[in-house]
């Protein structure tokens, strides 16, 4: 029964051998209060304006009601959560504590040893520094900044101060307010004018405990004519200590710029995943959100694009996968604030074993935003009769000269399809997985190669034991 990473934790902690009740050394007390927020800011040695931002957000958080729509959030106990754990203290968990099903998924996905520990919250640092360094040198030459948010704030305070909280104000909604009060980690990306970043920037390359925190905060600024693809998350299950994940992602895409933000989320199934993601796109700019939600108990996530100037284009491509006891309430929000803007929403959801998915979309066209085009397509696939899928398309159209299309389908895997595939020798599970991966293929093909491969493998795993 080997205990991993003993030296990083300090032998003292382990001398009793009580793996189950090891306490991290520097952890904020449970619950949220002004002193907790002040302590977080002090630990990080932040400038005063950031502390003020946090404190104002805390007041907003306390005032804001819980959302009354979407998923059932009544089981979140805000007093029972640690809002800050110093990254160097985060690894204080033993491999033995990691649930068997997560371990076996790592096996089946072939996740390397070092990453497994990290993903399971056992290792503190995933040793990818070497890979990352050479990439970072290239980026630096182009003037691209790619840092964790805390370092971003330290090293580029002016830029951060100019944009931080401008896309998602600290009182935007209860969970954005919570994040604004206690945020830690996340990424800061700045792409200078005209620079095209050819390789996807993967948070994965330099994941560390800080980055994978429960309240990470990401800010991406794409200057005119620049391009970047940012990728976060991974298909392997992430086993979290706390059951609340509430991130905020803000993106600014300036004239003629383009940004694609890809997320694959596979939190363990006890996590409430409540994320606010929003981008503003200026003249002729393009913002694309590609979003895959596989894990978590509850997800509420509606990536938004505010199309601020003519020619701006927004896209959301999302996949939601809900299994037993899971509720994926996902969708998109497009705000057409200028003429000649366009948006495209493609949502695919899969429910099985009583899981629930919902598409919740909001398309707004402001007065005088003439000649806007918006196309919404959401398709739901039900694997069995116990599962459920709902569609809530909201439209708020205040201009008549527009072209808005909405199409929704709900389908089941047909006996005819299964029979056809099985008549060629595929088992029922393989056949089911094949139909499902075909269903999400239009989105999976947009993923970076290694994600696409893992995604399909994961669908196969999810289908195991799902029949009958």
């Amino acid at each position, binding site marked *: 029964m080997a205990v991993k990473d003993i030296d990083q934790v300090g032998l003292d902690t382990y001398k009793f051998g009580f793996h189950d009740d090891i306490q991290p050394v520097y952890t904020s007390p449970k619950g949220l209060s002004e002193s907790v927020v002040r302590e977080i800011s002090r630990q990080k040695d932040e400038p005063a304006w950031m502390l003020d931002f946090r404190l104002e957000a805390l007041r907003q958080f306390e005032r804001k009601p819980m959302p009354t729509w979407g998923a059932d959030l009544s089981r979140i106990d805000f007093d029972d959560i640690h809002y800050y754990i110093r990254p160097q203290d985060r690894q204080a968990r033993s491999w033995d504590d990691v649930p068997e099903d997560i371990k076996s998924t790592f096996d089946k996905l072939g996740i390397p040893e070092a990453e497994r520990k990290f993903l399971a919250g056992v290792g503190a640092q995933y040793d990818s520094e070497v890979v990352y360094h050479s990439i970072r040198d290239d980026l630096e030459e182009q003037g691209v900044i790619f840092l964790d948010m805390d370092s971003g704030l330290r090293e580029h305070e002016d830029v951060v101060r100019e944009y931080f909280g401008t896309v998602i104000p600290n009182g935007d909604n209860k969970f954005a307010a919570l994040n604004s009060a206690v945020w830690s980690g996340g990424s800061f990306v700045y792409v200078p004018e005209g620079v095209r970043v050819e390789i996807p920037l993967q948070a994965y390359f330099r994941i560390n405990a800080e980055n994978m925190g429960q309240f990470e905060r990401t800010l991406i600024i794409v200057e005119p004519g620049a391009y970047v693809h940012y990728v976060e998350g991974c298909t392997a299950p992430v086993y979290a200590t706390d059951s609340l994940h509430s991130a905020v992602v803000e993106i600014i895409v300036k004239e003629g710029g383009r940004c694609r933000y890809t997320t694959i989320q596979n939190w363990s199934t006890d996590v409430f995943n409540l994320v606010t993601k929003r981008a503003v796109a200026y003249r002729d700019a393009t913002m694309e959100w590609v979003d895959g939600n596989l894990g978590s108990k509850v997800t509420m996530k509606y990536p938004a694009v505010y199309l601020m100037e003519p020619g701006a284009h927004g896209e959301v491509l999302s996949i939601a996968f809900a299994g037993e006891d899971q509720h994926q309430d996902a969708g998109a929000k497009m705000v057409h604030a200028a003429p000649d803007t366009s948006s495209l929403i493609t949502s695919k959801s899969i429910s099985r074993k009583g899981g629930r998915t919902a598409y919740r979309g909001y398309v707004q066209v402001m007065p005088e935003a003439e000649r806007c085009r918006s196309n919404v397509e959401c398709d739901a696939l039900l694997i069995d009769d116990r599962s459920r899928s709902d569609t809530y398309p909201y439209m708020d159209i205040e201009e008549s000269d527009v072209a808005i299309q909405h199409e929704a389908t709900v389908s089941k895997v047909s006996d005819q399809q299964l029979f056809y*595939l099985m*008549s060629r*020798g*595929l088992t029922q599970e393989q056949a089911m997985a094949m139909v499902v991966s*075909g269903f*999400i293929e239009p989105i999976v093909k947009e993923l970076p190669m290694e994600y696409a491969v893992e995604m399909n493998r994961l669908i196969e795993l999810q289908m195991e034991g799902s029949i009958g």
Partner: protein
Amino acid sequence: MSATNGQSTLSIRDLHVSVDDAEILRGVTLEVGAGEVHALMGPNGSGKSTLANALMGHPAYDVSAGQVHFKGHDVLELETDERARLGLFLAFQYPAEIPGVRVASFLRMALNARRESEISVMEFRRLLLDKMQMLRMDPKFASRYLNDGFSGGEKKRNEILQLAVLEPELAILDETDSGLDIDALRIVADGVNRLRGSELGVLVITHYQRLLNYIEPDRVHVMIDGRVVESGGKELAERLEAEGYERFAASAASEET
């Protein structure tokens, strides 16, 4: 249960099959030996596709009585995929569409299901391109979504491509000829003939003599109203072409009373 039933690879005895409590097959008996080609003909709705589906184990088709043996195995005990892995193959009259799944990736998985060890990607590619060339199919079909948006004839050709790649021991072709243009018909027939001869047994379901000019059957069976009412040599098909089914329909009706 004898391990092999003489020369016969597929042996159907007194098979009764119903759909939604309606009996469609009312006692079918048929034997197809290894390497033999049998033709099954009969009017619309007589139960030919029902037989094909029941042999492959479609869940909507209830077998209420009778036996089916294939290579000595009790087929009715097996799941559809097990029957396929044993070497049974059905080229569908109406192949299902599977959007988002590419022909090549599907076929590789299907082939691997039949094999002991996985075929390498390179080797599979070569095999697939070979077979596509044999059937004069455009290689770009390999990367299209399975039957999705295929024309009627393309679907049929794709069924034969699968037959060629998977190399089953007994293939049921359910009206593979309808919807094929004359050139395609010849190509498909050539394909089947090339696979024949060796071990492949074939049960060709067809309405037309034309296909049988290319794939010469060893035996021809006539199905009327859920039963095989007559069997004979290839001249039986020619007679049917000339006379139609009326003669049999009358006799089947008189049997009924």
